[in-house]
């Protein structure tokens, strides 16, 4: 079988698929044999949800260049809409319907908010999206059906590793494919220079809103996954600090790098897990680590590059080169 002149084994898509399946299988085996307990799975779920959030925010902030501080707002819409459904429709159909409705509701709000606000730039957009997230939180805090400030309890739990993996893979595939499409290229052009892009005939508002909607949809899905793994949601969970946490992951991983966002979510999740035994010092150490890492890698872990086998090979060769040089010097 041949795809564009290469054999199947050589095609990048095939290699990515195999790579993803290997990761899936390894974790599935570890979970099935009990080597990874529920606690570690809870950490994996937190990381997985953060991966989806970070990748979708990266699409808006890193690739389209629109500084949004309202991602937690979309997440909360996904979580609440999904919870309404799963509390009323039982079983897997309810779960899937909840995720779909959660994502769509968030996307709809994305349109409503995006159309007027995406005409703003830079700081103004950040403030507008921040305001939007606060409005959403306060609405959830004050209406009866969401049970106000107390939030919803005893939500049914469905998320397991296969589902989680499926949704992460779907979101990443959606984002990557979008970026490789013509609208995706238009988004990157907007990030590079909005005026130049407009001069080239790109309808900037339209593409900005498109990226915003996709990002909002994915954040809604992440919120829905949160509400089907954790038994409780309340408005405060999706406050301003949650939006900042997501932004931290994106900047830490590298603005404009999908693999950077994934890696960022994993690294920060693991750091947080290892520090949890240090109780009072934990947040201080976490912040300190962030500062140190950002000093030494201001462009984020990956910069705007993607992690790929070729890049890893180059890095390996580079290291080997250094090693040989040292060895030679040692001999002299």
């Amino acid at each position, binding site marked *: *079988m041949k795809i564009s002149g290469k*054999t*199947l*084994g050589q095609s990048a898509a*095939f290699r990515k*698929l*195999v790579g993803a*399946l*290997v990761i*899936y*299988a390894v974790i*599935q*085996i570890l*979970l*099935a044999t009990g080597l990874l*307990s*529920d*606690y570690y799975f*809870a*950490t994996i779920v*937190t990381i997985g949800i953060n991966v989806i959030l970070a990748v979708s925010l990266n699409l808006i902030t890193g690739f389209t260049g629109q500084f949004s501080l309202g991602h937690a707002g979309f997440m909360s819409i996904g979580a609440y809409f999904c919870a309404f459904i799963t509390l009323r429709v039982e079983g897997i159909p309810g779960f899937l319907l909840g995720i779909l409705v959660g994502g769509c509701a968030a996307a709809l709000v994305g349109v409503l908010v995006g159309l007027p606000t995406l005409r703003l730039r830079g700081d103004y957009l950040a403030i507008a999206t921040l305001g939007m997230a606060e409005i959403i939180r306060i609405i959830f*805090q*004050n209406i009866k059906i969401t049970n*106000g*400030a*107390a*939030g919803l*309890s*005893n939500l049914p*739990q469905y998320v*397991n*590793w*296969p589902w989680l993996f499926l949704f992460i893979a779907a979101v990443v595939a959606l984002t990557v494919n979008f970026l490789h499409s013509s609208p995706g290229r238009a988004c990157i052009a907007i990030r590079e220079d909005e005026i130049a892009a407009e001069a080239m005939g790109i309808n900037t508002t339209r593409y900005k809103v498109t990226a915003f909607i996709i990002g909002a949809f994915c954040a809604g899905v992440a919120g829905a996954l*949160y509400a089907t793994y*954790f*038994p*409780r949601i*309340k408005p*405060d*969970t999706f406050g301003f600090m949650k939006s900042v946490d997501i932004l931290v992951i994106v900047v830490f991983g590298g603005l404009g790098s999908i693999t950077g966002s994934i890696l960022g979510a994993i690294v920060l999740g693991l750091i947080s897990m290892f520090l*949890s*035994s240090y*109780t*009072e010092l*934990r*947040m201080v150490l976490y912040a300190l680590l962030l500062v140190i890492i950002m000093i030494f890698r201001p462009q984020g872990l990956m910069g705007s590059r993607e992690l790929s086998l070729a890049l890893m090979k180059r890095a390996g060769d580079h290291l080997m080169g250094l090693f040989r040089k040292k060895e030679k010097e040692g001999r002299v």
Partner: protein
Amino acid sequence: MKKLLSVFCAAALAITALAGCGSEKTGNKVEDGATTIKIGLSYELTGSVATYGQSSVDGVKMAIDEVNAAGGINGKTIELVEYDTKSDEAEATTLGKRLMGEDKVLAILGPATSGAFKAEIPDANSYKVPVISGSATSNDVTVVNGKVQEYAFRICFSDSFQGEAMAKYAAQTLGAKTAVIYKDSSSDYALGLAEGFAAAFADEGGSILKEESYTSNDKDFNAVLTSIKDLNADVIYVPGYYQQAGLIIKQAREQGIDVPILGADGFDSPDLLGLAGAENLNNVFFTNHYSSLDQDPVVQDFIAAFEERYGREPDAFNALGYDEAKFLCDALSRCESLDSVSLQKALCETKDFPAVTGTLSVDENHDAVKSIVVIELKDGEQYKSEKVG
């Protein structure tokens, strides 16, 4: 390569199918030969409600040190495994799994707030490990949709019970016939109190003239207080926290409203005095878990020991933390065998346990049946305390 792909897909699917067969959990137990009993401590040590968590933990540690110094439980000392939930409910769920699944604790104390405690309960039921909170007062903590949460316990009364107690006190002791409720609508706690008060006050034959509300960011209450003044109610019930209650009392007294102002344990803070001013804190009554005026030796010994250890007067959270740890140790000493399932039974059977916050028994809903204290303030000082209920 094609073959390899299909093998991978098949393998991954096969493992997925296998994952369905999980096994029923049987609870944690103390291994033979172990010299310690592990107890989990999952509290809000940082974040927005850190004061509650830290205060509770101070009380818990004091109680556990006392038990260990007295020889522990059946010759085994108690070892605390402590984590911080960052005041985040998802973290409470995650740490609950860690304590129950990884650290294999026999029981978990905490978290302090109702929401975080509720986030831990589903796992407690599936791992069969009891979880105990000293201060989760929300109405639906231990019973959900008419079903008792098997492994969840609390040693405090619920919000609506506290509201009811105040209503009875107002009607019977203060002789009130009419009342106005001025509640914090942004807090679940205040809404529970208001609900309980309104229902019980009506049962006592009184009438609620009006329900007004404020939110936790408000500073100026004069407009609403003016309209309340015109109603001439016998008492004003202000369910909420001291931050706003202090200002409400000050502004009400300055307007010349001198009827009794009633509140709940949210009033219990030294800051109330600073906000309201000593001259305004007269004819103010609030329900609480315990009063330092109580001459019961259990209370006075606790206060003396606490002051010696920490150099300050204990607050209600300190007392509740101390009580929940003592309550757990009492059940541990009555356990048939040291495992979490027999511990759950022993906890259910607790009767007339002499706690600092009142003698308590566990009812069929895993709620604490205990007395409640009404404290009267005079010139900003606790002047009189009375046990009711």
